[in-house]
């Protein structure tokens, strides 16, 4: 962790610069809305085997945008990202293994 | 310091002396190839463990002896902060040891999990059938049922353990197997999780409701092998035992033949009266093939099952394998059986009110006498040798 240096001096300002404007937020929300629409569209339009991968990709993109922009992970201390990503990765691996042990994938 | 060494030595020793002669559940006394494989895996690892422990303890004593220093001086020993080479060494060394262990573990694991194709030929109702030895094991609070489908398990739906298709032979507490054959088990449960374990023949396997777990057993020699339910399953978990009786193929065949036939109808007065009581009081839970066939199956109980009593006398222990049916001389242990019929929960804790276990039936002493007379007509006693070997205290 990069917290090992003595951060007695803080970049207290890091919050202020670099902050996206409201317009940027609205753009992102628009993008999220469009992706959601696309997601919903898959329900009505048959795209065959591509369905699940496509859904997953769209989900991850949305997830990523909310986390990095709305939750400011992009601009904020990397420590936050570490905690969050640690939780995410841990949860994902542990529960994927969990489902695998239950033979979830073959049972469908 | 002395005492310490002595004690640690003692505790190590205890492990070695694990195999007392009269320990019927001894895990280190394999009596079949499967248990043998496990033992072969464990023994060297135990030795390795002693070696590692001896090294750690030896180092501790050496340090104690060489570096103890209770003087109040200001001298400091050489200040060593670490040594990367050493660190890597003692990261690598155990890794290597464990890698070796894991190879053996995997080999044994694989071999314990593959299915051997074997079949024996049996006379069933005058016909010859090939039987791949397989037994359905069903656990419930707090006894084991063993079901034999002599025409194979193909097409036999085991998914609902409380509603299993009729089997050719249904028995409880004692599983009878032929020697020298790998017996495939399909194990399931009618209520909670139990664990099926015959230490001399193999490790254990849990049985769980809604799941059918494969497992297997094999005995080299005829004999009686003890087991115990090892997954905590409630009140009488400690009293949920079982035995495997391994027989020569000939003996096994005669056992099959006997089990397939219905016991002769009682003739004696008391037994007939007993049968009458049985039909009123007992058939709502128990099955005796000649009376109620497969029609009533313990509908009163949470598990939906009570032991099938058709060949009751052919087993030597009952009620979860904890009571002897016979005295050592081969005569009926009447006192115990009467006590059981008088008030079963008194003999073996159960939640009879909660429909788990056999209730106290409120029978009169006469009725009990008659019932015992009737029960003794159900099946024939096995030989004295089995009675002796299965005796439980």
């Amino acid at each position, binding site marked *: 962790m990069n917290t*090992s240096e003595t951060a007695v001096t803080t970049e*207290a300002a890091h919050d202020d610069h670099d902050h996206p404007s409201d317009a940027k937020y609205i753009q992102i929300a628009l993008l999220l809305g469009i992706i959601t629409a696309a997601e919903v569209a898959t329900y009505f339009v048959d795209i065959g085997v591509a369905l699940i991968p496509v859904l997953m990709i769209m989900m991850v993109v949305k997830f990523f945008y909310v986390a990095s922009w709305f939750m400011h992970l992009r601009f904020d201390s990397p420590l936050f990202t570490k905690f969050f990503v640690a939780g995410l990765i841990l949860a994902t691996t542990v529960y994927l293994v969990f489902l695998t*042990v239950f033979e979830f994938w073959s049972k469908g | 310091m002395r005492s310490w060494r002595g004690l640690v030595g003692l505790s190590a020793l205890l492990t070695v002396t694990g195999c007392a002669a009269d320990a019927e559940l001894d895990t280190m006394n394999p009596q079949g190839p499967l248990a043998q494989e496990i033992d072969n*895996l464990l023994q060297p690892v135990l030795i390795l463990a002693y070696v590692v422990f001896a090294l750690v303890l030896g180092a501790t004593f050496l340090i104690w002896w060489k570096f103890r220093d209770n003087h109040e001086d200001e001298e400091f020993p050489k200040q060593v902060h670490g040594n990367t080479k*050493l660190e890597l060494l003692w990261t690598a060394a155990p890794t290597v040891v464990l890698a070796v262990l*894991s190879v053996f573990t995997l080999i044994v694991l694989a071999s314990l999990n593959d299915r051997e194709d074997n079949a024996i030929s049996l006379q069933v109702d005058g016909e010859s059938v090939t039987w791949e030895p397989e037994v359905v094991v069903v656990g419930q609070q707090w006894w084991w049922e063993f079901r034999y489908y002599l025409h194979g398990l193909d097409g036999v739906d085991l998914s609902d353990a409380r509603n299993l298709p009729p089997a050719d032979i249904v028995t409880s507490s004692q599983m009878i197997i032929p020697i020298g054959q790998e017996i495939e088990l399909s194990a399931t449960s009618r209520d909670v999780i139990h664990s099926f374990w015959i230490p001399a023949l193999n490790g254990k396997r849990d049985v769980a409701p*809604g799941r059918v777990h494969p497992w297997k057993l094999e005995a080299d020699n005829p004999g009686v092998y003890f087991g115990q339910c090892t997954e*905590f399953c409630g009140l009488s978990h*400690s009293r949920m035992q079982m035995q495997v009786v391994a027989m020569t193929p000939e003996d096994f065949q005669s056992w099959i033949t006997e089990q397939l036939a219905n016991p002769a109808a009682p003739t004696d007065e008391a037994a007939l009266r007993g049968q009458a009581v049985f039909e009123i009081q007992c058939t709502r839970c128990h099955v005796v093939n000649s009376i109620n066939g497969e029609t009533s199956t313990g509908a009163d109980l949470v598990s939906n099952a009570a032991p099938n009593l058709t060949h009751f006398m052919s087993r030597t222990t009952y009620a979860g394998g904890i009571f002897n049916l016979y005295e050592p001389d081969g005569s009926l242990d009447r006192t115990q059986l009467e006590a059981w019929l008088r008030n079963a929960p008194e003999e073996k804790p159960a939640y009879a009110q909660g429909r788990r276990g056999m209730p106290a039936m409120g029978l009169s002493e006469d009725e009990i006498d008659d019932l015992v007379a009737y029960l003794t007509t159900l099946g024939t006693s096995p030989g004295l040798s089995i009675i002796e070997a299965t005796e439980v205290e």
Partner: protein
Amino acid sequence: MTDTAVETTRPIGVYTRPKGGGGWRDWVTTVDHKKIGILYGATALVFFVVGGCEALLIRLQLATPNGTILGADTYNQVFTMHGVTMIFLAAMPLAAAFGNYLIPLQIGARDVAFPRLNALSFWVFLAGAIFLNLSWVLGGAPDGGWFGYAPNSGIIYSPSVGMDFYAIGLQITGIASLVSAINLTVTILNMRAPGMTLFKMPVFTWMMLVVQLLLVFAMPVIAVALFLLIFSRQFGANFFNTEMGADPLLWQHLFWIFGHPEVYILILPSFGIISEVIPTFSRKPIFGYEFMVFSGIAIGFMGWGVWAHHMFASGIGPLSVAAFSLSTMFIAVPTGVKILNWLATMWGGKIKFTAAMLFAVGVISMFTIGGLSGVTHAMSPADTQQTDTYYVVAHFHYVIFGGIIFGLFSGFYFWWPKVFGHMLSEKLGKINFWVMLVGFNMTFGPMHTLGLQGMSRRIDTYSPGFGFELWNMVASIGSFIIATSVLIFVINVIVSAVKAKGQPHCGPDPWDARSLEWMTPNPTPEHNFDEVPVVESLDEFWHRKYGTDEEGRIVRVATAEEVCQDGSATGVHLPSPSYWPLVFSAGLPLVGLGLIFSLWLTIPGGIMMVGSLFAWVFEPVDDPDGPHGHHDDSEETATEEAPVV
């Protein structure tokens, strides 16, 4: 800082903060991490004795075949409560006691990041502990084993209220653990003294950091498992209803996904403790500090990938068994690194075998026995013979008693002067150790044998004839020797306290210690440090006392008295005490009882909780007469950015 927070959150008349003062009021409102640490420790010791007495009952029942001291039903409750009490109400809170008391001191902080939340953690824990034990008198204790396997823990098979107390009680203590874990994580990351980088932190603090992270990630998993159980029992949910197609293994997985990290949650604090004790008494720095730290992290990390080793016989497929078998074995590697590094620390030292050191050395050898039997479990085919026998009971008592309890006792003897200002008797301490070592090996050593002889665990009695008689008797006698040793400890505590009465406090540095906590006088003053030290190295305190001369020999450059602060600073601002953590916590068991017996009870419970939360948020930052300050824990009041220095 900014008094503005005070100004903006106008104190609402009634909610003035208590002033502290003296006596019991001081203890129930305290937010001081040291007092909370002591509260944790005292409570946990009480529950250790409770759990120990349950263990003695178990041993009495099993001493002879066909034992009749407890019936089957009572026995099941007793062993379940023994496991639950020891793990959740004794071992975990004892670790919390050390963590609370020592972490801020070891990193040079005045308190933890959220003092009121810290108090909350303790009171919630206490509420949960009392709640769990109330079950004894309110309809029967839990009887499903400490891991409460479904469906045996369900309403059909366990119709008494016991398992409800289990599920709700553990949920309550879980809240305490989670809150405290977040608190200590933030404390360690954010509040280190200037100069103290992560890699200058004492190993104990490091291990506690790993433990807090494990807690942060593991507690929610058992929380979910317990919710599923509560919903199934209270509201008829079908999570474990196999008739409808539910899978009973769901509970096992969730429980052990939590449960295995949990055992490392239990052991790592003790590893941390002896990593402080051993260097001190060997008069050498810890060998391979980075390896010690990284192996601790590795243990914590690998601990997530091994849970199904508790389920080798449960019917998961052979591939899963193989995978978990391998992952489990390799956990021995980082643990081995620790064992060998401790030995290497002692090697070439000038070792003083004080009581604390004896217990630490005891950990090294006794834990190793347990660890090695763990490896024999990890070989899954072998484990199918061992699982659910006394061999497992032997394994985990060796790691738990030999690893955790010995480690904690080492900590008691080591830090007692720090906390209470007087030493424990070394003589009694050594007797304590030897008696405990003898009793411990006599109790749990024979269990290896019993297990290999085929004695199942959780059986209320056994018949003669299986060859179990001798070793059970030996084990039972051993357990009373352990009890004697615990009694000796209690006597030591009392005798030493009586002796110390009226005497001046012991000097600041009784052990010639190494880390920052000893830079404050003994016992620690309320404000910890007069002045927060600037840290330059690992073992800062030691380095301030010693330097090297031209030939590289170690020479004393300052006496401990010179280096230590005298605790004379006055007027240091400290967070004010508060009633609300206690009030909030008292509401929880009421809600729990309400769920079990009558929903009406949830109303006063809910009111207490919501009310105290409200009061919490709006209570003034400071006690009315105290000096103005800042640094408090409520979101409303402490939101200003970290000031730039």
